[in-house]
Structure formats: structure tokens, C-alpha cells
């Protein structure tokens, strides 16, 4: 390894895999961990201390649904004491009265609430949770009332891509500071449900125009971050800003990973916090070093002038589509397999498949044998 390893800036803490919603695009792995596999409060606190010592400045508290952890205030309190910026990523349902205020009191810095649709019926259908929309709106209002800044996250796919103008109105109405129009990344549950989620090309083109127009019109009023759909792109996304470059994530059981879907890459072994220190894992884990920097790259990445912009794209997508995690992400036009992306879009949008394989603990693992039986008509 010839590259210098810099300290990490960001950490995504998946405190739990439990979640009241069952979104078919969830980025969690198919093998969801049950509550008894989650790290205890003391372990998370000790991990957060080590993260702060190592240089982490921002921690995204996520899941599953992080508010299902009764110790969330304790965790926020410690991070706040250490000067680490805390971002709560929540579904915004099932949060008890007063909890948002308690979290603000503990020092929480920012809240991101996901909306599965801009319309109540869409939000309910995608998350498979009754009255989800109104509950999310109530949570958003409590966040603003507590003086916390709010981001609305809108994960986009075929079933809500035409709701973008309504998402923008919703974000303004809820006095959000930012709106994330995030086209679903096809990993985890979204990969499993790709044929039921992928939008068609015409919708994607309409979406791009709507977003660009709104970004201009709302300049200085609402920040709109646009995560583009990479199946339709010519260059890949710089996944995680480069593998193990300045961010990482931790699964509920303390497994430290370079990204959400890294567990889908065969041959990589991921270490658990507690068995090793965070610093040892960040610097020394063979899995972290496998695709760090640019030394691992083959052509066309190796001589590409975008290699330190795209970092080869997403390793997990290379694995999923090319069958090899060490090749160029096929989302890149320079990949010899780039045509596969168009083929997969075609397959998905002509499949006639609209049903979801809903995200549930236990259901992802049984998929391969019980696909038809497990599928729920939407």
C-alpha cells in the first residue's frame, strides 16, 4: 500500500436493523440482524470515543430506525461532548412525544427525515406502514419547533419519480433547509427489487429538468441535492468518495465496513469493533486496503484522468453487474460492460414486474427459494 491513509471524517452508524418501515429499496443488507445482535450502549460509546480520537467529525446515526434504540440520547450526549457533529437519519414514525426535544437537549445537530412519497398514498405503499405520511409530517414539525435544521430525503424510483414537484413543495412547507432527491442506489434490497423500482428513461429525463429548474429558482431558499441515477449516467458515482478514503460505516453488531454493501463482495473479511480497535481496522484491515486509493485499479481506470474524481465508481456495483469487484463500475461509459446498464434498464422497465419484495427481518435470506410466495403485490 503506497498511499497515505488519512484520518476518516465521517461515520455512518447503523445502530439497529429494526425498522417500522419495509421499504423495498432499503440499503441494509438482505441478512438483517435481530435486536440481540446489536452492540450494547457501552460498546457504542467506546466506539464513538475512538472515532473522535481518530479524527471523525460527523456521525450519521442511522439504522434501520435509530430511534428504536432507547439509549439514543446517551449516545448523542457523548458525541456532543466530543464535539462530533450528529445527524439523525430517521423514518420519523413511532417517535414518542417529547423525544425530539430530548435529543435536541442532548446536543443533536441535525435531523434528516425520509419521505417515501410526496403524497400520503405513495408514502404508505412504499413503506408498507399505515398513516406514515402524517406521522412524518408531525415529526418534521417537531424538529423545526425544537430549533433543529431539517433535511427531507426523497429516495426516488419508478413509483414516485413523477412526484418531484410535490416533494419540493413539501420541503418548503415543512421549512426544511435541504431536500435530497436521491435516486435509489441498486444495492441491498434495492438490487433485489430492481425490476420493480427502476424508472424508464423518459421519466429520468423529465426529472433532471424539473430538478435543475427548481435548483435555479430556489437558489438561496432551499438547497436541493441531487443524487443522479447512475444506471442512466456516463460516469459512475464516486461511491463513499472513494473506498475507505474518508468515511466508513458500522453495522449494528459492530462490524466495520467501507460501505453499506461491502459484505456482498466475496473474499473480503470485515472485522468487528471490540475484537480490534477502530484505528487498527481503519489503517490495517485488508478489506479496507483492498480498494483504497488508486493502486488496485486496472484499465480503463488506471490511466483515466477521472480516477481521483470517480475512484473507479462503486465496488459493489462492479461485483453485482460485472461479477468482479476489482473492475471499473459498469456505470462508466469507458467500461467494456457499460451496455449492460442499458440492458438492465430495458429488462426492468419491460418486465411487467411491479410487486415489491418488502424489507423484513428474515425475508431477504429466504428469497432465493421462496421468491413468488414472499412477494407482496403493491
Amino acid at each position, binding site marked *: 500500500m503506497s498511499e497515505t491513509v488519512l484520518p476518516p471524517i465521517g461515520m455512518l452508524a447503523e445502530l439497529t436493523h429494526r425498522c417500522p418501515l419495509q421499504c423495498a429499496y432499503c440499503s441494509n443488507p438482505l441478512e438483517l440482524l435481530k435486536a440481540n445482535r446489536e452492540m450494547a450502549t457501552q460498546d457504542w460509546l467506546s466506539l464513538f470515543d475512538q472515532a473522535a480520537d481518530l*479524527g471523525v467529525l460527523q456521525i450519521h446515526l442511522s439504522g434501520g430506525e435509530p430511534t428504536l434504540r432507547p439509549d439514543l440520547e446517551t449516545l448523542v450526549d457523548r458525541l456532543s461532548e466530543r464535539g462530533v457533529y450528529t445527524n439523525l437519519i430517521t423514518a420519523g414514525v413511532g417517535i414518542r412525544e417529547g423525544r425530539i426535544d430530548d435529543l435536541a437537549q442532548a446536543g443533536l445537530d441535525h435531523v434528516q427525515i425520509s419521505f417515501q412519497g410526496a403524497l400520503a398514498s405513495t408514502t404508505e405503499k412504499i413503506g408498507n406502514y399505515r398513516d406514515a405520511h402524517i406521522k412524518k409530517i408531525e415529526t418534521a414539525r417537531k424538529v423545526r419547533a425544537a430549533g433543529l435544521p431539517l433535511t427531507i430525503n426523497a429516495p426516488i424510483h419508478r413509483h414516485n419519480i413523477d412526484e418531484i414537484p410535490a416533494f419540493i413543495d413539501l420541503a418548503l412547507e415543512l421549512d426544511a433547509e435541504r431536500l435530497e432527491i436521491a435516486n435509489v442506489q441498486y444495492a441491498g434490497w434495492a438490487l433485489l427489487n430492481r425490476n420493480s423500482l427502476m424508472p424508464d428513461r423518459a421519466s429520468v429525463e423529465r426529472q433532471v429538468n424539473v430538478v435543475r429548474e427548481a435548483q435555479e429558482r430556489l437558489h438561496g431558499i432551499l438547497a436541493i441535492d441531487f443524487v443522479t441515477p447512475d444506471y442512466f449516467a456516463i460516469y459512475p458515482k464516486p461511491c463513499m468518495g472513494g473506498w475507505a478514503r474518508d468515511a466508513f460505516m458500522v453495522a449494528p453488531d459492530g462490524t466495520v465496513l467501507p460501505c453499506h454493501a461491502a459484505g456482498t463482495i466475496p473474499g473480503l473479511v470485515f472485522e468487528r469493533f471490540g475484537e480490534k480497535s477502530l484505528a487498527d481496522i481503519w489503517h490495517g484491515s485488508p478489506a479496507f486496503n483492498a480498494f483504497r486509493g488508486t493502486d488496485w485499479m486496472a484499465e480503463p481506470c488506471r490511466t483515466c484522468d477521472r480516477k481521483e474524481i470517480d475512484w473507479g465508481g462503486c465496488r459493489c456495483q462492479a461485483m453485482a453487474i460485472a461479477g468482479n469487484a476489482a473492475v471499473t463500475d459498469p456505470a462508466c461509459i469507458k467500461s467494456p460492460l457499460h451496455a449492460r446498464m442499458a440492458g438492465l434498464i430495458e429488462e426492468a422497465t419491460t418486465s411487467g414486474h411491479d410487486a415489491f419484495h418488502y424489507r423484513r427481518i428474515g425475508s431477504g435470506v429466504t428469497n432465493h427459494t421462496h421468491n413468488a410466495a414472499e412477494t407482496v403485490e403493491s
Partner: protein
Amino acid sequence: MMTPQRQRILLSHRSTPALKPHVRLQYDKVRQAWALLSPEKVFWPDDVSLDILRLCDGTHSVTRILEELSMQYDAPIEEITADVETFLQDWSDRSLVAL
């Protein structure tokens, strides 16, 4: 489509810029540099940006900020005004500074 109720805030010389409540400027001991923490991003302001941001304390008006910087940098106010105004408007548009 609904008309946005919020308006873009435009800089005036009576504005008293302040970092937004959820934005923190703190010294990072690990990297030995000043970091500006915001909801989804970390910024590493350069020395000039830092000097402007330190004056964004909600008490200095833009006029006072310009006077202060003019002294610190030993430069005429007219020479620095455009750059400072652009900086503050940009940071306001990015929701980092309240005007």
C-alpha cells in the same frame, strides 16, 4: 405549484451576519486545522475565509466587518468590498451564514 413563502435573503450593509445555529467552527486537533461543520458537509476554510467567518458573530454589521478587515489586511475598503460581499451572499445562499 405553490409559491415559496421563504425569500432569498439579500445582503445589505446593515446586515449583521452570524453563523447559523447548526453550523460550528471548531479547531480539529487531529488535522491541526479549523473545520466548519454543517449538516452534511465539512468545510476547511482558508485563512481569509476564517478571518471573515470569525467576524460573523451577529454583532458586527457588514460595514464594521469591512472596516475591520481593511485594517487587518491594510487594504482600502473599496478594494475588498466586492469580494467580502460575494463571500457573505454565497455563504448565506448555502445556508451557512444568517444575514
